[in-house]
């Protein structure tokens, strides 16, 4: 029975160090990672209750109900959160943030000169339902040029359109921070961050699937385009430390 974690080559996870992305070289940990003893601290986690998230937080496309929409293509992003056994993870707190349609974030660190959008909320949260499902309404983000003046930075690097996700899961050990990409974007194959995952199937699981509409557009003046993907969190197979 496995009672501690170890360093293993895992081609489904990104490399910690990426040539051309200098910050990774300074923030990737030391030469060695020590075995982590799995304990109750990994099998438990903060209980974010239903009351901790407001209903309108799943709509990033406007700053308040009834307010004008942000510029850009209106989309939904939906799916399920599962554990490694394929069981749904209900009550999973999810955080989503991304750039506006022009490729600019609502953040004091974003130096980009491209236009801001006062109608764009830019960040949102949701809790998965009893079946582990979520559904966000937002606008498709733009790609953007990464500042490349720092020594070692890849010249001409553009981030593809992408969504940032943070998931809390059922326990502290299940925490996931990742990004989701859009299908058919030529920048996907050139992105250092998506490309840092060696396994192709693992990369593909970070690309949203486009779902063609089956209902009429006529009842919604601003019918969104639909995208979907599932998330799989760690856990369930991790066994508690048994002691000797």
């Amino acid at each position: 029975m496995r009672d501690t974690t170890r360093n293993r080559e895992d081609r489904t996870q990104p490399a910690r160090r990426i040539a051309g992305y200098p910050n990774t070289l300074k923030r990737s940990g030391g030469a060695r990672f020590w075995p982590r003893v799995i304990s109750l601290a990994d099998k438990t986690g903060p209980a974010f209750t239903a009351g901790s998230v407001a209903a309108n937080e799943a709509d990033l496309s406007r700053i308040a109900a009834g307010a004008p929409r942000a510029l850009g293509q209106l989309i939904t992003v939906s799916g399920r959160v599962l554990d490694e056994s394929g069981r749904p993870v209900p009550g999973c707190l999810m955080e989503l943030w991304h750039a506006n349609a022009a490729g600019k974030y609502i953040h004091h660190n974003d130096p980009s000169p491209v236009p801001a959008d006062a109608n764009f909320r830019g960040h949102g949260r949701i809790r998965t339902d009893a079946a582990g499902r979520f559904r966000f309404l937002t606008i498709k983000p733009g790609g953007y040029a990464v500042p490349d003046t720092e020594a070692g930075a890849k010249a001409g690097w553009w981030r593809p359109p992408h969504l940032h996700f943070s998931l809390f899961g059922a326990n502290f050990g299940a925490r996931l921070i990742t990004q989701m990409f859009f299908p058919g974007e030529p920048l996907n194959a050139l992105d250092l961050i998506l490309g840092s995952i060696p396994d192709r199937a693992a990369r593909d699981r970070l690309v949203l699937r486009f779902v063609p509409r089956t209902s009429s557009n006529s009842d919604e003046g601003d019918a969104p385009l639909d995208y979907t993907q599932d998330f799989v969190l760690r856990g369930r197979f991790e066994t508690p430390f048994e002691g000797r």
Partner: protein
Amino acid sequence: MTRSRRGKARRLAPTAHQTTGPFFPAQFIRPGDSDLAGLTGDRARAAGAACYVYGHVRDADAKPAVNVIIEIWQASGAGQFDDPNFFGWGRTWTDRDGFYSFTTIKPGPYPVRPGGNRWFAPRISMRLIGSGLMRPLLTCLYFPGEALNDHDPQLAAISSRAARRRLIALAAPHASAPAGTAALRFDLCLGGRNASTFLAE
């Protein structure tokens, strides 16, 4: 449960991590998230010995690591993770000097196995995320001068004395520590030869 053709339970591969990038929304870090003790925010005042945990986070070049998000998870003063009177999770981020702090209570020890007689020493689990961290960095803060540290299974799993020592905070006063708290300094280094002791995922 997903099953292969042979009927054996098949694991789904966990979704890959990616960095938060530099634009983690400030709105996600709420007032009170760094005060687990409930001394200042809207959380209930927690039972136990209040402490102020602080430190500097530096990168491999020994420069202040700004905009690093630190999340902690810990047992209550009674050593419980499901204590209804203590929300043992907190989050903060480093400022432009790479400085961070939490106000919390000293967690109680908890048994390795329910009902067993081996114990984890008081400790605070930490997860670091941020720009340039393609995966989270995991570490754990231990308290200085604890007799249980000598028997803690996690510390015992680290064969280097120097690496073990880097997990133990220093008792060191700080001007920003709220009155009545014990101040503990826990500096972190994200890479290079002076890297902190990080634990495998």
